[in-house]
């Protein structure tokens, strides 16, 4: 059983929902990322989404754009992100790590080399925002050959036929983008999510995480009631941006503990 499967199986048994925080690797500095990952786990994270910074993050709002720019300025690269996961794994063998980003840095490395490296360092899943299933055949064959789960996005605009297509390729969990917009947007529509999730479940047997627009304990709780996992990205990245090198680990830990408490009330 993969780490992602094991995690969701355990949560199901405990009747809890997953908390899935996102941070950008190398933001605000390369030394802080691994300690931050451990702090996220300690504060109650179930799955970690680690952003691979890209020069042109088209699906991201200003907060994650700035995080990517900060990380790239310090020389963050896909190679560097993989090394961070390796370091994280020396102390944490169980928490799933999903790399999230855009396809081009992986294209530049080569999908087979990338998939092999993922398996070696202990990456569990890969989500490439701009690689839909139609363009991903070779890419995902390589991932699957090395036992890495391709994580797919579904959106409010995704129609049933596409959900079906995505369902065939998806592994681990699927990530439902709760709103039309970029990351960090603020107009969460809970009724629409409540309506869409049961439709998705008709085609998807995997756990469904929901992200985009979750900014505090109240929204985390409301969304957690509707799905299997809550993804929080921009809000955490914002906390990192507003912290100093000295208090960032403590501040992020505090925020994630609050979110954990909220999600566990669902």
């Amino acid at each position, binding site marked *: 059983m993969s780490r992602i499967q094991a995690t969701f199986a355990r949560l199901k048994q405990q009747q809890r929902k997953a908390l899935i925080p996102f941070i950008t690797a190398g933001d605000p500095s390369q030394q802080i990322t691994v300690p931050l990952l451990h702090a996220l786990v300690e504060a109650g994270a179930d799955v970690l989404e680690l952003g691979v910074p890209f020069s*042109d993050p088209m699906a991201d709002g200003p907060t994650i754009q700035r995080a990517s*720019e900060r990380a790239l300025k310090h020389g963050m690269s896909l190679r560097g992100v993989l090394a961070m996961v390796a370091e994280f794994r020396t102390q944490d063998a169980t928490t799933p790590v999903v790399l999230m980003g855009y396809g*081009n840095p992986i294209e530049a490395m080569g999908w087979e080399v990338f998939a092999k490296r993922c398996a070696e360092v202990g990456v569990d899943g890969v989500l490439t*925002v701009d*690689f*839909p299933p139609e363009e991903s055949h070779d890419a995902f064959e390589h991932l699957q050959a090395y036992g890495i789960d391709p994580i797919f996005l579904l959106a409010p*605009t995704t129609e049933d036929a596409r959900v079906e297509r995505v369902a065939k390729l998806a592994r681990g969990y699927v990530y439902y983008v709760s709103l039309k917009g970029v990351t960090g947007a603020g107009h969460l529509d809970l009724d629409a999510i409540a309506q869409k999730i049961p439709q998705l479940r008709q085609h998807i047997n995997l756990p469904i995480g929901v992200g985009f627009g979750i900014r505090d304990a109240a929204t985390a709780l409301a969304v957690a009631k509707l799905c299997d996992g809550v993804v929080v990205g921009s809000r955490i990245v914002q906390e990192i941006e507003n912290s100093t090198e000295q208090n960032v680990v403590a501040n992020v830990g505090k925020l994630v503990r609050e979110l954990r408490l909220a999600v566990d009330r669902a």
Partner: protein
Amino acid sequence: MTYNYPDSTGHFGIFGGIYMAETLIPAVEELSRQYLRFRDDPEFKAEFAYELKHYVGRPSPVYHAKRLSESLGGAQIYLKREDLNHTGAHKINNAIGQALLAKRMGKKRVIAETGAGMHGVATATVAARFGMECIVYMGAEDIQRQAANVFRMKLLGATVVPVESGSRTLKDACNEAIRDWVTNVESTFYIFGTAAGPHPYPMMVRDFQCVIGNEAKVQMPEMIGRQPDAVIACVGGGSNAIGLFYPYIEEKSVQIIGVEAGGHGIASGKHAAPLTANAKVGVLHGNKVYLIQDENGQIIETHSISAGLDYPGVGPEHCLLKDQGRAQYVAINDDEALAAFDALCRFEGIIPALESSHALAHAMKIAPALGKDKVLLVNLSGRGDKDMNTVANLKGITL
């Protein structure tokens, strides 16, 4: 074998495709369906032809640049005068086509990215013409370089949004337009300005721009009794170029030459010439193309004197034509483009856009070594009025 691209999934060989975030995939698929539905619709075609004739002023003439050719002492240079179109560049051909499609799809809001501002002006123009709300994203750096075009867009009723992220140029304007589209996908039509991006844009923009080459194929035999020996156009994303080239692909006697922006020279690394510099294949803005990037797959900032060519990628069909060897791609440096700009002003009384000056510069470079009976057809894709400030600055003059 006849040339027939893209395939049904939007691929030009390994290039092209639909590399987009999930939220936008249904939108581009719907756009494909609607475009294929209307492309051959007699009413749509008639309306497009009417607008091109009565609003744009087509056909654009072909002009024999005799004094310029004589000064070079070799091949004859002919110019396809897209600079004489309404709004001053080829961009209007595509903007009208997409606006007509937007109208049929019931979209009341259009967005666009722009570099030099010509596509922004064209989009603002058709939005005014058809009564649509118009938002244009433009890099803050380009807004400085192209102040006159910014004012034109505002006069036409468009909102111009400065983009401060990244290199603050065309690619960043594209990123921001995509972010707008993903947020307003249901109400908004993205009038994309070049023959790149996710399918169906490379095909659709090419089809709308093919009027350039289709006219030239009729005009050249009327003028010289045959087709030219070579067709030459500048390539940023490559829409004016593919518009001229595409109808000539099966005319094997006609050489096809695309001219990229060499900036300070390929060796300097400060250029915008992915094809000439043998850049690696990559994925950006919805399609797989040759892309200027570092070894980690991050997009590198490009440089060109001309904002319209200052882009790290290139349309997928040009990538294929390069690989097939059907077209040749070369680069012209900033200073060579400026010299061609000056030459056309002085010899022919035509002020070309800095973008088009690149194509002209290459024709001027190869003409002297060719016989006087050889004919080079250069796409003069736009006029240079917008470049007055840039050129004045380079000459050390304050206007």
